């Protein structure tokens, strides 16, 4: 009884009905994910929806649907369904592939008078060619019936497809679970560690290439990757669509901005020096003083609509800065780079604007497995739709040549035209004309 209960469960988990149900649920959740704002703070949902809806969204994890337990559970169940289904079906497919059916299990395609000629293997092969069953395919002979088969691998079409989907899902989940992401940025000459690894990076060059019309054609960074001891591991150029790769880590050109040298003085004493990035601040915690580079205008213009930059070339540079003291804004203005900025006993020097590069660093494992899954899916689809297996059985009887075919052969197009061709072929054979 227990076994039968277990069998019932396995049968349910491997059934197509269960697979279809899972696909429908995944589809519904995917649609919800595109219309429901994702990744917002819980407060957003409480304020935007009714109390009941907000509770439902948050408790089911619909606000982070694609990383929710529910979504992952459905994909895991789908993988299980595909695994069981593939395992159970494998034996059946192999059996079907090897099986030589009795003619009673095939569709009779036609009877053709043979006249005085005697049917032989060559004549059968000639008939097979007219059905697209090539002569190089293996044939079997049983009880006077010659069996020819085509596209035997086609039996595995949907099996490969399912296996491919399963691999894509499993390797995607593995990739997500072990995903590493980080970033490095800086102006040429700057070095920084890649957090979470034992590597250090050094930006050697950053270049923006322009076309004649002024539009950007490419952003290119020259990067060097070093180990903790400063030994060079790899160096090279990377740009958009062309990452630099090392040991599973990929460096992507994802952004850029402006940065400048920044010096902070207290009276005549230099108390801080470094690089100041746009939309960032430089602080001296002991003094509770800081300066933020709010915006850099490479080609500054004051218009009716406010301050704008007319291009991204440094034709008329200007910057908007803000000075903070004890976390309070104390001064804000627009000045030219290098202009003196003073507040009380403090002075600030911001100069030498240049572009900095921003690189995203990812390491996603299992990509090869997912790619293999994708290939299997494509191969499976090709086999399923365009390499359908078929069996042709040909035999000589008293009333002539009888041809049987599997349902795939019977469903082939142009069977009427083929019928005429077979008659013509047999007539020519009888007349002794060499037909190949």
């Amino acid at each position, binding site marked *: 009884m227990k076994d039968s209960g277990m069998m019932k469960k396995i049968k349910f988990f491997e059934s*197509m009905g269960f*697979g*279809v149900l899972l*696909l*429908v649920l*995944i*589809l519904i959740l*995917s*649609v919800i*994910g*595109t*219309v*429901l*704002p*994702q990744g*917002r703070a819980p407060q957003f949902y409480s304020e*935007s*929806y*009714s109390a009941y*809806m907000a509770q439902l969204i948050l408790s089911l994890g619909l606000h982070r649907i*694609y990383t929710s337990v529910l979504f992952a559970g459905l994909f895991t169940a789908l993988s299980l369904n595909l695994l069981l289904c593939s395992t159970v079906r494998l034996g059946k497919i192999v059996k079907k592939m090897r099986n030589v059916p009795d003619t009673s299990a095939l569709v009779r395609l036609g009877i053709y008078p043979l006249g005085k000629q005697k049917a032989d293997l060559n004549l059968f092969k000639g008939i097979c060619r007219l059905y697209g069953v090539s002569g190089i395919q293996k044939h079997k002979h049983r009880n006077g019936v010659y069996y020819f088969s085509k596209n035997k691998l086609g039996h595995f079409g949907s099996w490969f497809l399912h296996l491919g989907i399963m691999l894509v899902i499993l390797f*995607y989940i593995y990739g997500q679970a072990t995903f590493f*992401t980080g970033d490095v940025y800086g102006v040429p000459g700057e070095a920084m560690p890649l957090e979470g690894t034992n590597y250090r990076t050094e930006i050697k060059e950053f270049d923006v290439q322009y*076309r004649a*019309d002024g*539009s*950007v*054609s*490419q*952003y290119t960074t020259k990067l060097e990757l070093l180990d903790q001891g400063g030994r060079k591991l790899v160096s090279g150029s990377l*740009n*958009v*669509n*062309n*990452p630099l790769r090392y040991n599973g880590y*990929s460096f*992507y050109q*994802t952004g850029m901005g402006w940065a400048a040298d920044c010096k902070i003085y207290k009276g005549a004493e230099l108390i801080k020096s470094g690089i100041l990035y746009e939309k960032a601040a430089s602080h001296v915690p002991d003094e509770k003083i800081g300066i933020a580079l709010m915006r850099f205008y490479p080609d500054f213009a004051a218009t009716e609509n406010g301050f704008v930059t007319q291009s991204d070339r440094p034709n008329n540079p200007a910057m908007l800065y803000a000075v903070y003291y004890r976390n309070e804004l104390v001064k804000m203005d627009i000045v030219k780079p290098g202009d003196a900025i003073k507040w009380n006993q403090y002075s600030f020097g911001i100069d030498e604007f240049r572009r900095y590069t921003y690189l*995203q660093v*990812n390491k*996603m494992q299992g*990509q090869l497995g*997912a*790619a293999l899954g*994708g290939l299997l*899916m*494509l191969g499976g*689809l*090709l086999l399923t*739709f365009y390499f359908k297996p078929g069996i042709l059985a040909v035999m000589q009887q008293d009333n002539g040549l009888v041809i049987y075919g599997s349902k795939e052969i019977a469903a082939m197009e142009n069977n009427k035209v083929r019928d005429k061709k077979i008659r013509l072929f047999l007539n020519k054979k009888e007349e002794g004309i060499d037909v190949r």
Partner: protein
Amino acid sequence: MFGEKQGFLAALILYSLAALAYITFYISKRLKYSAYGSWLVRAGLLFHTGALAMRTVQTSYLPLTSQYEFATSFAWGISLFFVGFELRYKIRTLGVFATPLILIVTFYAALQSSEIRPLMPALQSKWLVVHVSTAVLSYGSFAVACAVSIMYLIRDKIKEDDFTRAHMPQLSILDNISYKAITFGFFMLTLVIITGAIWAERAWGRYWQWDPKETWSFITWIIYALYLHVRLNRGWRNKKAAWYAIIGFASILFTYIGVNTLLAGYHSYGLIYWPWL
């Protein structure tokens, strides 16, 4: 001088006239109008191909990078598949249902800005050509499946007479044509998703990010995967399959137009939500 714009306009006019000719054929039941429709679509396709070729020469890249370019290529794809299917199956009434789809997408293209913009760095990839051109073929094939399915439902509804017997194929043939178009479209859609994933990995660092466009391609893929499952294993054919093919194409249109327009503000404005819920 005859350029890309004139070529596109000529194609638009020829497609409109073709649709008119096919509809006249269907109403008047006079065969000559279907022949006119057929030749007009072919002429339209010729001008359309010329327009796309001229744009390619002008920009030095395939016209697959903007809303206008994809729309005009999509319309070209439907037109190409329609002409192919019409020649292959010799169904005179197919144009009555396919040319309006060609027209809708061509008009949509006409409403978009056709301004030629320099290719931004993110689009400078050989994967763009593979990814988007397979999308054109996939969508074009699904559009033909949709047109044939509409034809199926109408053929099923109307009384059979000499005209339908002569010019509208048997329901089983229509069902089979729609299935074949869907199988090709599905294979291409799988290729679209896989090539898109490869490109996304090279450009963004992740091959799948559940971006609305990706997600809707995936949703469409599931819809057609379900169609193939229930058709091959549960014998869902004929009327049910025809309705399903139409729903599938609605999903294609949403993936293409709906996501770009309705969910366009997803990243910057925090997407659409329904506060009344």
